[in-house]
């Protein structure tokens, strides 16, 4: 390098570039590279080891004709709709209740949020115990004299996914409440005053004025819930291990089991690519709105 030349473009900000190497590697090798690799190998018939032996869409045909995958998708849809609707509604109602200038707000918030600090494994195991038909809620209610009472979601394959959703809601609504509360606090006090002066009842103010104003909060919350739904795995493993039978299987568990137990990598890759696709359907429009329109993050 002769000193008379202009400094090479590559060496400007050299330290910053060196410091960013882990970030660049993560972004390119793991996120882009890893994803592309998995998608590529989902078109092969890899079994125990990944091999580049292309079979077209075979893995996907197999995937969509496997009952276990279909059950997983159905469960994910039910679980998804339940968590979406209930966590939004409960989260918003709790936030609205806490926003009424009440006493002990911090205490209540601490109580509603603490399950979020616990792992899905702990959550799943606690609810497995509470829903145990021989000892848990069913047993207690029967002891009170209602002999025919039946509440055993974890042992009844037609409602097992609801049992899992109960645990998930217990764990996650606190977070939604916190986000909503932050959103409510961001609303100008004058809006409330104006609504009160006009004599609009409180529920109407919430429904027609406050909620539309909180659109950005709702969108962010929606994205958070949606991306969490697809990832659901540990909770099912802890609570039911996918049982009874295959009644509470979810896609994330399908991927893991095919990759590391069934030694059918191709199926695992195809299933994980489907998961990626479903997330992209939610994320891409959101990312476009968030990052595409204006240059801001």
């Amino acid at each position: 390098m002769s000193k008379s030349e202009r400094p090479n473009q590559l060496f400007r900000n050299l330290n910053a570039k060196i410091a960013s190497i882990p970030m660049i590697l993560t972004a390119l090798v793991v996120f882009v590279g890893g994803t592309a690799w998995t998608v590529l190998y989902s078109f092969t018939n890899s079994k125990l080891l990944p091999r580049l032996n292309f079979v077209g869409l075979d893995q996907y045909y197999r995937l969509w004709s496997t009952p276990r995958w279909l059950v997983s998708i159905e469960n994910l849809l039910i679980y998804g709709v339940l968590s979406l609707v209930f966590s939004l509604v409960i989260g918003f109602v709790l936030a609205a209740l806490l926003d009424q200038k009440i006493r002990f707000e911090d205490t209540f918030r601490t109580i509603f949020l603490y399950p979020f600090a616990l792992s899905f494994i702990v959550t799943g195991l606690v609810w497995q115990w509470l829903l145990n038909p021989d000892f848990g809620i069913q047993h207690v209610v029967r002891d009170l004299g209602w002999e025919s009472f039946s509440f055993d979601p974890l042992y009844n394959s037609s409602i097992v996914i609801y049992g899992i959703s109960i645990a998930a809601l217990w764990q996650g609504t606190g977070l939604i409440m916190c986000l909503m509360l932050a959103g409510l606090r961001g609303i100008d006090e004058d809006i409330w005053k104006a609504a009160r002066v006009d004599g609009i009842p409180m529920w109407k103010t919430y429904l027609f004025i406050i909620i539309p104003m909180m659109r950005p909060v709702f969108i962010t919350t929606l994205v958070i819930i949606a991306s969490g739904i697809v990832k659901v795995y540990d909770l099912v493993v802890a609570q039911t291990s996918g049982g009874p039978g295959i009644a509470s299987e979810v896609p994330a568990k399908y991927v893991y089991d095919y990759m590391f137990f069934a030694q059918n990598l191709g199926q695992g890759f195809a299933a994980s690519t489907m998961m990626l696709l479903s997330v992209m359907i939610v994320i891409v429009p959101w990312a476009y709105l968030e990052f595409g329109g204006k240059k801001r993050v």
Partner: protein
Amino acid sequence: MSDQAVSLPPATIGREASGPSGPKPRHRFSRRNIFLYGTLIVVALYYLLPLYVMVVTSLKGMPEIRLGNIFSPPLEITFEPWVKAWSQACTGLNCDGLSRGFWNSVRITVPSVILSIAIASVNGYALANWRFKGADTFFVILIVGAFIPYQVMIYPIVIILREIGLYGSLSGLVIVHSIFGMPILTLLFRNYFSSMPEELFRAARVDGAGFWGIYLRIMLPMSLPIFVVAVILQVTGIWNDFLFGVVYTRPDTYPMTVQLNNIVNSVQGVKEYNVNMAATILTGLVPLIVYFLSGKLFVRGIAAGAVKG
């Protein structure tokens, strides 16, 4: 309205004599308040119930559990299930209890938290103050990558770790945690450093400080709060992780969550529900302590880190 006048405290009555002033007095037991606090208390009880049942069950003996009711307090308090869960509970052939998982989790969490925060804070600093061409592209990839289901990337990472000889070791898992903690932490630090006054950075530049000098002597000491938030976020996140633990470690290096699941959901032997619940509380204790000690900072952490999902 009539019963309201009766129960008014004397002080308020006295003030009424000098004519009404201030806002209309809200009665403490108005129908609105009963509804409000009633709902909140019922919901709070529902949220506390599992914790209560966990603690109560873990303090009972097995005979009492078989006969009794999960909600009733223990007649005879015993700490034996706790001792057993900590030092004797079995997973497979190992019968040294959860203590092994606990120490594994400590050996995973501490370096992961330090490494991930070190990397992410430097990233955030570079992105906020030393932008180079293309930096934002990598950043956007990183943020979008945070939403990719982990299942898509776990196998390629298995291959990478195997190639560099770290598959199955604790260091491998530490790297994985640092990678997946990067998006959210980088975002956190980038936003924080961007909000610091630009003049500070310029003044340091004029005085001849370089990239690392400014980072270590100015940015680091001034950003203690955000480091605390990051530590809270990472400690709870990494401690609670299950998927990476089960994929990237071997049975003797399993973190606590994985070992807990193996203990409780093992099919062999008689189920000891009190030991299981004690083990469950032990596993949840670290994040719970972090949560109760950190208070408002935890809320700030998750509000900032909510994008993680």
